[in-house]
């Protein structure tokens, strides 16, 4: 039996092109990986990481478990398309084997098996006819959802979907046609040759009854041609379109299991992350730059798209709070913040040596009391002296001797520069402070700034020094009993999770425990992992003051909707930002302040 017909040619060309493109892409990305990354792959290949990755591929690339969690309608759409198509291929292969036995059959033989089986009068196997029809229906339902999503996206519980580029549109339109056309081609085949399951078989019988036989014959081959052309076109468009994600997510999952990570400088591994974005658009809705400011070309899906096609503009790159709300929901688990950061590094890292001149004039405090605990105020807390005073009062109340690393002002922690991509300049500050802290001999460093904490934990090498946010430190003091604030059972507080503290450092519970010890905590609607950004993030260098204020006001609105008269936060920047957006009768306080007030 020969598995070839002229209509297979477009399909064969498309597939060959796709495989070649994949080989080139994967090959060069892997080849260009940094040596350390290659070593990681080598070291982790024969470990549990590999089976774990295989399981994750099944769960995510086929079943799309994470999308289900975000939005079940969207989950169904992805699963029906991906898993349905996969099963069609798998069951199709089994079907072929059932008919012709275990032998090599070229790819087009499997894909167009119905055509070849019918032409060769192979007889019918109703079980497979039924199964294949069922799967086709499953996929077709997914296509129907996809079409519906384009037309009425609200219907899918999404306020916005991604706007696409030309390659995407081509691939998308062809994709919509592939399965309906397959249905038509198979049905006509059934009409001519009989057989088929509940779907193709029934339509075939119906066609045979209503359409003249000559017409059916005339349509028979062309229908298979169209199907083949659609497949071929889709495969050719695929490597250039968002559908590249189908094949990129798989290696990404493996590499991630092998512990490869993106960093502050762009590496080849980033390619896997960038092209694994399916442009599903799930990241658009949580973005406050979209909801509060109506700007909708900067969200992660657009950022990754622009970066991928080398047309990234600073106005898109820098218009982002790096609040991490989108990263939180991205079903592919792409490290969106890190990628943005290293794009910024690439596009604007221009170290300015003049910047460090002030290092020499910074008053360096000696730890003459040999304190074991240090406190890093940070630039922002210097601008919110209420917090500084509160910390001072707390330290005094515990009787602990504390070394103030920067009482009279010091060198910035480096995080603001890192966020804006000035990686190398930031390094100088990090080095300065690292030396300062190491030489002081402290074993615990407390900071009341979430921004400082984030960079201390991520970038400073301070083994032997425990790095604590003041929320954690105060919580410990409360547990130990060395702080005994008076609790007001009738006073309610609401809490704003700073992005850098919550999503940034994973600290959600300590601040809540501290609030609970002085009053009643009422949670706003969007909280913890999905808490809002205050709008003044240092990472956004594009929006103006008025826009910051709009974001802050809407964050304040969700907080005050709880009815609490005091908004508590745990970051000096958030405190300032929220205070701007607040009306007179609402207080905005730092965690330390509400504790110190009650000592």
């Amino acid at each position, binding site marked *: 039996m020969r598995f070839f017909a002229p209509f297979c040619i477009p399909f064969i060309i498309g597939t060959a092109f796709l495989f070649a493109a994949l080989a080139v892409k994967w090959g060069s990305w892997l080849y260009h990986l940094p040596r350390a990354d290659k070593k990681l792959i080598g070291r982790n290949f024969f470990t549990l990481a590999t089976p774990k990755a295989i399981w994750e591929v099944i769960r995510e690339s086929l079943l799309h478990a994470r999308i289900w969690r975000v939005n079940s309608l969207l989950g169904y759409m992805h699963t029906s398309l991906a898993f349905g198509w996969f099963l069609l291929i798998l069951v199709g292969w089994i079907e072929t084997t059932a008919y012709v036995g275990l032998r090599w059959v070229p790819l087009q033989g499997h894909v167009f098996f119905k055509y070849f089986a019918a032409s060769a009068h192979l007889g019918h196997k109703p079980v497979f006819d039924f199964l294949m029809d069922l799967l086709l229906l499953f996929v077709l339902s997914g296509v129907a959802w996809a079409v519906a999503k384009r037309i009425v996206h609200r219907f899918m519980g999404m306020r916005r979907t991604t706007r696409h580029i030309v390659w995407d549109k081509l691939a998308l339109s062809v994709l919509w046609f592939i399965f309906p056309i397959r249905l038509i081609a198979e049905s006509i085949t059934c009409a001519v040759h009989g057989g088929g399951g509940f779907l193709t078989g029934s339509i075939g019988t119906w066609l045979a009854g209503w359409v003249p036989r000559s017409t059916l014959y005339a349509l028979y081959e062309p229908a298979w041609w169209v199907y083949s052309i659609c497949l071929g076109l889709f495969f050719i468009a695929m490597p250039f379109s968002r559908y590249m994600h189908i094949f990129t997510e798989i290696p990404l999952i493996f590499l991630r299991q092998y512990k490869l990570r993106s960093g502050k400088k762009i590496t080849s591994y980033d390619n896997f992350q960038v092209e694994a974005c399916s442009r599903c658009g799930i990241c658009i809705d949580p973005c406050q730059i979209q909801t509060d400011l109506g700007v909708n070309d900067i969200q992660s899906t657009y950022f990754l798209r622009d970066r991928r096609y080398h047309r990234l503009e600073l106005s898109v790159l820098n218009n982002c709070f790096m609040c991490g709300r989108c990263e939180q929901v991205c079903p592919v688990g792409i490290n969106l913040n890190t990628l943005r950061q290293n794009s910024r590094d690439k596009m604007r890292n221009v170290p300015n040596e003049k910047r460090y001149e002030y290092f020499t004039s910074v008053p360096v405090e000696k730890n003459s009391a040999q304190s074991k605990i240090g406190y890093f105020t940070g630039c922002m807390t*210097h601008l919110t002296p*209420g917090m500084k005073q509160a910390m001072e009062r707390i330290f005094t109340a515990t009787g602990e001797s504390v070394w103030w690393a920067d009482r009279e002002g010091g060198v910035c922690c480096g995080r603001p520069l890192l966020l804006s991509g000035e990686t190398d300049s930031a390094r100088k500050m990090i080095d300065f402070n690292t030396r300062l802290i190491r030489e002081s001999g402290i074993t615990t460093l407390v900071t009341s700034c979430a921004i400082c904490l984030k960079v201390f934990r991520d970038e400073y090498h301070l083994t032997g020094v425990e790095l604590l946010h003041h929320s954690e430190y105060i919580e410990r003091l409360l547990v130990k009993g060395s702080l005994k604030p008076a609790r007001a059972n009738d006073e309610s507080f609401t809490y704003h999770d700073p992005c850098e503290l919550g999503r940034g450092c994973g600290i959600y519970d300590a601040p809540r425990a501290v609030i609970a010890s002085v009053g009643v905590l009422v949670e706003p609607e969007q909280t913890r992992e999905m808490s809002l950004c205050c709008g003044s993030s240092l990472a956004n260098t594009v929006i103006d*003051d008025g826009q910051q204020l709009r974001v802050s006001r809407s964050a304040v609105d969700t907080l005050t909707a709880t009815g609490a008269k005091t908004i508590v936060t745990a970051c000096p920047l958030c405190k300032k930002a929220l205070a701007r957006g607040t009306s007179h009768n609402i207080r905005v306080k730092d965690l330390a302040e509400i504790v110190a007030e009650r000592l």
Partner: protein
Amino acid sequence: MEVERMKSQKNHTREVVVVGGGVAGMQAAIRLAEQGVRVTLIEKKHELGGHIRSWYHLFPSFTPAQEVYDALHERFASHDIELITSAEATEINPTSVTLADGRVLHTKAVIIATGFEIFDARRKEEYGYGLYDHVYTSADLELLLHEGEAGEGLAGALGFTPRRIALLHCVGSRDEKVCQPHCSKVCCITGVKQAIELKKRFPDAEIFNFYMDIRMFGPGYEEMYREAQQKYNIHFIRGRISEASPTFDGRLQIKAEDTLTGRPLRMSVDMFVLLIGMQAGPNFGLPHADSGFLEPQDLFLGNVVAPAQAGTLGGLFYAGTVSAPKAIGESLNEGIAAADAAAAYIKQK
């Protein structure tokens, strides 16, 4: 204290209601009464005068504010004006004014002269107002100067004799970070005036004014600024103070950048005065600028007239600082202008 006077007009329909009994509102009411218009003045507080009641000596002539008020009040009292004090207007329409206690006053026209509010300096937390000792606002200093008239003088009122004093311009003005984009206009000259007052009382003290720009817009202001430098040896430094923090010996350390020489600057002072700006009060749902001050029809011939709104044509007028920061003289003039416009309006109706 004012006594609530409900005069013979009770039974007549009111012709004009003036909301706000500061200098602008008082002047408007006087002018209307002079023209025989039946006018009612509503004041939120229990007495008239508005902000000038809290000021000491006025720029640029050092005239005691009390003198200006007394003269104005004397004229006010000589006219037949219905006065309702301790009454806050909550809703304003061209033909009616609703008070907080639910009373509704019907009228033919309304002049809004609700003035300004002073900026709450605690919102610029970095300057430590309310947190550290020896940080004052310019409004506090006016009261202290009052207190210092008796007893031990200003040093007595302060409780110490300052040796070095810093005054900071533009606190809560020209500052988008606190949503006050506008220039408050009078604080530069207030800063010069207060620096001179301080120098007169503490001749040995060094006095520094930190500014972004010096705005001397009125008659005699520039001369006073020059005198401050030449005669009183007050130092003017161009640069905004970024933060203040207490030192171990109970003084304050301030950090700034001298933007003329481009050098960072630290200095210990024992008195820190924040020249707070004017902030807009409630806008009653009327068109207003970003700063919150009400926007008149135009800035030339219609500068005391509210913009014609959908449905209503005319009947609302503005006087004084409700529409932008102004000095007393300008506010008084607007009182007259608004009164004349309102009188013409009700006559033609």
